[in-house]
Structures are given as C-alpha cells and as structure tokens.
C-alpha cells in the first residue's frame, strides 16, 4: 500500500494543484503533498527487512489483463535509497521555487515528475516501468519548455528527442524480451537466460536508453543545454533524480538481464565512463557561465558512477550507489543555490559576480559546504563513494582508475576557481545590494547540508540495506552457470567474498 501511496499521492496532488481554483494556495498545497509523501516514504526505511534481498512492499493488480500486464510494484535495497532520495528532494525543490514561480503548472509538473520517478523505481512489471519511465518526459517538457531560459525551445526538443531515441529502441527490446519470456514480471525475466546474440542486441537497446539518460560520453549532447536552460528546480530534478534513473536502469535491467553481454561490453563502457569523467571536468574548467560549470561537473561525476557499476564487484556497485545518493544531495544543493543566486543577480555569468562572501556570508558558507562534498573532501558525502569506486576500479583496470583520479584534481580546481570568482575578490562593478539567504532558503538548504555530512560520516547506514540486494540481484546473475564452469564460478565467488570484506571497511 505504501508504494502506491508514494506514486498516487503526488499524482493526485498534481491533478489537484492544476485544478485548484485558487492559484495562490497551490504553492503551499503542493509542498504539503510532497511533505506527506516524504513522511510516508520514511516508512519504507523503518519497515525495510534487511535480511530480504528480494522485492518488498509488493503489490500487484491487473492493468491490461489481455496481455498479462500488471500494476506490480515493489522495492529492494537498490531502489530503496533512490526512492527516498526522490521523496526527500522534491519538497526542497518545491520550496526552492517559491521565490520565482507562481504558476500552478510548475508545481503540478514537479509533482507529476515525482510520481513518475517513484513509479519507475518501484515497478516490477516491465511494461509499467516503461510507462513511468516515459511519463517523466512530459513534466520535463513543461519544466524546461515553459519555465526555461532563452534557448528553451532548442533545449527542450533536444532533451526529449535524445531520451526518446533511446527509449524507443528499448521498447523494441522490451517487446522482444517479454515475448521470449511470455511475462512482464521482472523476477521471471531476470531468471530467464537469453541466448548470447539476443543478449548482445538487447543490452545495446536497453543500454542506449539508460546511457543517454545517465548520460555516458558521447551521448551527453542534451545535457549542457537542458541543465542550463531549465529553471533551478527543473535542473535539480534532472541532475539529482532523473539521471540516477539511467544508472538505476543499468543496475536493474542491463547488467542482470544480459550478463554475458554486460561482461563483454564492460571494458569499453568503463573507458567511455572515464572519458566522460575527463571530458566533463575539462569542459567545466572552460565555462564562464557558472551553471554550465555545475552542469559539466555533474556530468563528470556521473562518469564515476558508471565506472563503479561496471566493475561488477560489490565494492564498486556499493560505491556507485553511494555516489548516486551523494551526487543527488550535493548537486541538488548546488543547483538550488544557483537558482537563489540568479534570483538575486539575474545572471549566471561568473564575471557578473564577485566578492559575494562579504555580502552574503550564509550563502557563501552553504556553497562552500556543498562544494566540499562535491570535491570529495574526507568527511563529506563525495569522499566515500569515490574511494569505493576507485578502489574497485583499480582492481579491474589500474590505468583507468589512475586516469580518473585526474578528473578529481580538475574537479577541485574548477570548483574552487568558481568559488573564488563568485564569492571572493572585489565586489562586482554593477553594485547592487545583495541580500543574504532568507529563512525559507536556509530551511530548505539545511537538510541537504546535514545529509552530505551524514553520508560522509556513516556510509554504512546507507550501504547495509543495499548489500544483500546487490549481491543477489546483480552479482549472482553475473556468475556463469555453475554446471558449465565450476572453477570460474568459485573464482568469482572468492573474489566477491574478498570484495565484501573490503566493502565493510572502506
């Protein structure tokens, strides 16, 4: 029941907000709905059974009985944190928009996005997953297309077309997979072993959809424009939540359903992940628009997540997952701050800023705090995920791991450079009194500031619930059939056990 509430409440809220006769109350109404959703979602954590690797909180009803399509939802350790991340961030995003947006459509779109994201994360029926997955595009269309910046038309169309291209090919693969297994049930499909050449094509088709969403270099063409043109709240939804669904899709579908293909492609994907990491970092150093810097740094950090997932070791998977959560938290914070700054300054150009640390000490502190998490200072969120991924990547391919460290050096450089240009130095020539954060803004940043430290200080709080599910739903699937190659299976198991030991003491 709880998962249906998490999907149904925002959906109902979106409808209510768009039909509510008093436009002025829609802000409060939408915030209230998202807050209730968040409170309900905490129940997922408190009632989560750590010993169960499979899906929990399961529900199932007929959707299209003639085809065997069900409304079937459930979450495991992999989706748990992403659902919670979503329900945690949406109220903050809504609160962040209070200053700039009065139209009901904005709030309705965000709630619709929440329903779609939670729905996609919780679906255990492939058709239902696709429905929610594609549903995300509609609120995204309105968020960027209606409330975007100057180049919103181009950015919207490009974003939607990129993502649709991948999704449509995934649809064909999905049709094929469900035709082969004669079921839409994820568990049944995951137990099915597909022929090698079918795995090859299906991995590519599913993968394309997810790699575009993540996005993996060189499929990131939609990202810089979409992030820059979207309003701050929209950018948060895209960068902190929606791209995580790409990584989630890889973990949920690409790797466990098509393990042979996944292993064959893994070396290439790791190279592309590192290439994206470096490309994002280099591009970020070249930007003069600070929202673009953040956009490219977000891209760069997503490369690390993909790198972690494709090491196929528990450490790497956990690192990737943890990095998803931390990336969601600090990127959300940074983009929300970017929104607050543009409300005050009316520009994203770094040259229009300068010396803000003296005018707005609270804002500057919050920015520095979140930046520390992004750069990966020990004790902050980014650090643990990065170390876990790098350690496991080093075992697979030492050269790649060493190259990707370069990305972090860059990361520190461009972010501190950004901080310097905006907050230090002489006050910008076009003088205008800039007010510091108000109570609402502090209130909405506070949870993020706390969480990035919490993740950094007690990563095991987050790692423990996902461990069993990662082991059973991903790593087990990657093992070759034991009857065929006993020796290799043992080797893999030993390797996994060794990884597990390391995973416990990061």
């Amino acid at each position, binding site marked *: 029941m709880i998962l249906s509430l998490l999907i149904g409440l925002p959906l109902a809220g979106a409808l209510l907000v768009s039909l509510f006769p008093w436009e002025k109350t829609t802000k409060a109404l939408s915030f209230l709905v998202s807050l209730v959703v968040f409170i309900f979602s905490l129940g997922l954590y408190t009632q989560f059974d750590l010993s169960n690797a499979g899906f929990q909180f399961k529900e199932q009803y007929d*959707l*299209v*009985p*003639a*085809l065997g399509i069900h409304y079937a939802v459930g979450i495991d350790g992999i989706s748990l944190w992403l659902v919670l991340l979503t329900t945690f961030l949406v109220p903050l995003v809504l609160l962040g928009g209070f200053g700039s947006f009065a139209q009901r*459509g904005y709030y309705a779109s965000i709630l619709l996005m929440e329903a779609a994201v939670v729905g996609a994360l919780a679906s255990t029926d492939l058709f239902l997953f*696709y*429905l*929610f*997955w*594609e*549903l995300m*595009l*509609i609120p995204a*269309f309105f968020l960027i*297309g*209606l409330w975007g910046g100057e180049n*919103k*038309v181009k950015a*919207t*169309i490009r974003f*939607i*077309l990129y993502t*649709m*291209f991948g999704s*449509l*090919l995934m*649809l*064909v693969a999905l*049709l*094929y997979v469900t*035709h082969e297994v004669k079921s839409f049930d994820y568990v049944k499909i995951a137990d099915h072993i597909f022929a090698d050449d079918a795995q090859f094509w299906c991995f590519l088709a599913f993968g394309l959809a997810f790699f575009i969403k993540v996005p993996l270099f060189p499929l990131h063409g939609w990202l810089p424009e979409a992030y820059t043109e979207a309003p701050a709240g929209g950018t948060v939804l895209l960068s902190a939540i929606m791209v995580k669904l790409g990584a989630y899709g890889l973990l949920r579908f690409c790797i466990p359903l098509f393990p042979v293909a996944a292993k064959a492609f893994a070396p290439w994907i790791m190279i592309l992940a590192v290439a994206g990491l470096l490309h994002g970092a280099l591009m970020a150093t070249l930007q003069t628009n600070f929202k673009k810097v953040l956009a490219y740094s977000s891209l760069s950090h997503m490369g690390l997540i993909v790198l972690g997932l494709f090491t196929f070791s528990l450490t790497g998977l956990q690192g990737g997952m943890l990095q998803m959560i931390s990336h969601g938290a600090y990127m959300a914070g940074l983009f929300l701050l970017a929104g607050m700054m543009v409300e005050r300054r009316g520009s994203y150009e770094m040259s229009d800023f300068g010396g803000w640390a003296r005018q707005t000490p609270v804002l500057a502190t919050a920015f520095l705090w979140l930046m520390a998490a992004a750069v990966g200072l020990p004790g902050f969120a980014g650090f643990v995920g990065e170390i876990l991924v790098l350690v496991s990547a080093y075992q697979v391919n030492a050269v790649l791991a060493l190259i990707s460290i370069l990305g972090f050096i860059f990361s520190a450089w461009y972010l501190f450079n950004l901080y310097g240009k905006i907050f230090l130095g002489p006050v910008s020539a076009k003088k205008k009194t800039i007010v510091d954060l108000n109570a609402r803004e502090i209130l909405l940043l506070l949870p993020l500031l706390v969480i990035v430290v919490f993740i950094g200080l007690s990563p095991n709080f987050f790692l423990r619930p996902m461990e069993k599910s990662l082991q059973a739903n991903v790593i087990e699937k990657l093992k070759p059939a034991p009857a065929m190659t006993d020796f290799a299976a043992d080797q893999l198991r030993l390797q996994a056990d060794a990884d597990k030991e390391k995973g416990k003491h990061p």
Partner: protein
Amino acid sequence: MNALPLELTALAPLWFVVAGALTLLLLEVLFHEAGRRAAPLATLTFLLLALGSDFRLLSLQGMPGALFQGSVVIDLYSVTLQAICALSASLTVLFSSSYLKREKAVTGEYYALILLATAGMMVLVSAGEFLTLFVGLELMSIAGYILAGYFRNKERSAEAALKYFLTGVFSSAFLLYGIAVLYGVSGTTHFSELRLFIEKGLPALPGAASQMVFIYLGAALLVVGLGFKVALAPFHGWAPDVYDGAAAPVSGFLSTGVKAAAFGIFARLFAEVFSMPGPWVAALATLAVLTMTLGNLSALAQTNLKRMLAYSSVAHAGYVAVGLAAATGSPADVVERAVAFYLLAYTLMTAGVFGWIAWASGEGEKNSNFSDYQGLAYRHPGMGLALAVFLFSLAGMTPMAGFFGKYFLFKLAVDNGLVWLAVVAVLNSFVSAYYYLRAAMQLYVRTDKEAKAGLKPISWGLFTAFFICVLGSLIAGFLKFPF
C-alpha cells in the same frame, strides 16, 4: 427463433444512422430555418442512439455473428469499429456546428452527409462478403467526396474534392477487379468461404500453383484498392492535399472515421482471410515502411499545422500497416484488437487536433501556420494543454492512448518475427516526435506579437468534444477493451 427481430436489433446502430440521415434531409425541407438550427442536435441524438445500441450489443453474452446469409457479420470487432465510427461522427458534428456558424455555411445536408457516410462505414466494417463491402465503401466514399468539397466556392476545397473523387473512383475500380478475380477463382464472395477455399479447396484442384497466382493477384488488387482509401504510400498522393484543402472538421472526419472504417475491414481481410503465409506479408511490410517514412519525412518539412497533420496522418496509416503485415500467424482477435485499439486512439487524438485547428485558425482558416499560434498557451492555457496532449499522444508518449496503440501494433510485429519492421517503426516514431514536439513547443514561445483577436470562446459543444478527446487520449490505454 424468429430471424427477423435479431437482424433488426443486431443492426440497430445502422438503422438509427440511416433513419437519422433521412430525417435530417426532411428536417430542413419541412422546417426551414428552425430545422437547420436543430440539425446538429438531431444528428447528435441519432448518433448517440447508434452508439448506445453499439454498447448494448457489446454487453450481450454471445454475438449474433453472421446475418443475412453471411453478408453481414456482427461480432465484437465490427461492433467496436461501428462505435469508433459513430464516435468520430459525433465529434465531427460537435466541432462542425460552431465552425459552420463561424463560416456562415450552416445547412442541414451537411449533417445528413455525415450520417450517410457513417451509415456507409457501419456497413463496411460489418461486411462479411465483398459486395457488401463494396456497397458500404461506396456509400461512405460518395458522401465523403461531397463533404470534402462542401465549401465549393473555395478553390482549395473544390480541388480537394476533385482529387479525392478521381483517386477514389480509381481505387474503387482496383477493388472491384480484385473482387472479380477472387470470385473467378473461388466462386464465392464470402470471406469465410474464400478462406476455406484457399486453405482446403484450392490445393486439391489440378494446377493449384497456377490458381494460387490468381489469389495473389486478387489480394494485390485489394491491397491497392484499399491502400488508396487509407492512403498507404505510394497510393497516398491525394491525402495531404485533401486533408489540407477540406474544412478542418471534415478533414478530421475523413482522416478518422473514413480511415478507421477502411482500415477496419482491411485488417479483417488480412486477419481472417489472407492470414496464411504469403507474399502479402512482404508486400504489406514494404508498404508500411514506405508509408511511415514518406509521411514522416514530408511532415518534417511543414510549417503549417494542418498540412503537417495531413502528412502525419499518412504516417499513422503506416503504423497500422505494420500490424497488418504482422497479421499472419497471430490469432485473428489479437490482430483485430490491436488495430481496433489503434483506430480508437487515433480517432480521439486526430479528431481532437483537427477540431483544435478548426477553432484556432480563425475565420476562413487563415491562421494555421506555426507562427500564428505562438504563445497561444499563455492566453488560453486550457486549450494549449489540449493541443499538447493530442500531439504527445500522436507522438506516442506514455501514458497517452497513442502509445498503447503503437505498443500493441509493434508487439504484433515482434511476436511474428518482424523485429526489423518494429525497429523501422520506432525510428519513424522518433522522427515524428520531432515535428510533434516542435509544434507543441510553439504554444509556449513567448512572442511580442499582439494577441490575435477573434478567437471565440469555447462553446459548450466544443468543450464537450475537446474534453472527450483529451480524456480519451489520456486514459484510453487503461480502459478495459471489449474483446
């Protein structure tokens, strides 16, 4: 059991529509101005009666099946299609009534023609043999020709009617040749007997292989004839000009009801008669690829919403043809369900868009370029959202009806081993998404231009029609389908 009452009740929808057509012709003669004013309401009443009796039939346990010595088949499929045609006609009436008032062209015969065309569609989709099929098709088409040229003083409308008429009779000739050839080989015009003949009778004959050639020839001529009617490439040349030239509500009617009926019977032929492996699989697949690709690529280049839709409607015929190509090997009811659902979804969204154009393009349909409705969503948020919903649904975005429609059709293709065809189809959907989204984006472009005056507020009739189309486009995929 007395046969007569059953044949009366099972065909009740048809009787209502025919009675309506005759009544409307009389209405204007007898009551002049008052009759003219009452025409839309009267038409709607008869259509709703027809729809109601369709729903009653759908709720029956057990369908009547073949009636009139098998010349009419009343089963779930034909009744569903009848309902879709009646729905299309009802929406057209709702959209037309304010359109005709605006264009100062209110007449009673307009509505009578719509009802006559609907009667033709109902006969067509319920046909169980070729001559009934032909009679229905002609009744539908002739009414359609006149409707296309209803604004006969307008050059484009007259041109559309002439083009439509000439290609229409041309295609009817193909169809008749096909029927004649099939009759010549098999000695029957009944679908079920023809199928039996192809499967059992023909292989037993001496020289079966050479006889089979005539079956192929007949089927090919049928494909050409029906292909013209539903505008499959390369027989689609007339479609863009006709849909663009006719009055917007009429274009909506021609591209939904008329096309749905023709596709309905087309699908029945290939799901029930020519459902064994044969050269038609490759032929239909080729036509599907051509139609989708030509339609979508031409639509890409348009800057006029109505003309873009004219081409996109060609592309949509291609998607249905994907389902037809995959009809071999699937159970007939699966194919028919997929096609019927697609036609329903297509009717809802396309009728909605053409109705929208009829409303937004203003007097004389002068303003249907993209640039004419830039920023419209800021002045009319509800109507902006309505167009966005229709376009999203046409683009096949979830959870709109258009997505489910495509899903069922492409699923047929994949289930029958035509994965390549499904890939071509989704790539085409991708291309179409570009122009639909570009069109939808125009609604939200802020312009400095002054708000276009003269957009009339929505009447209740229009509101109802748009409401049905929007709601249908949003939720049709989740409804329980009759079969």
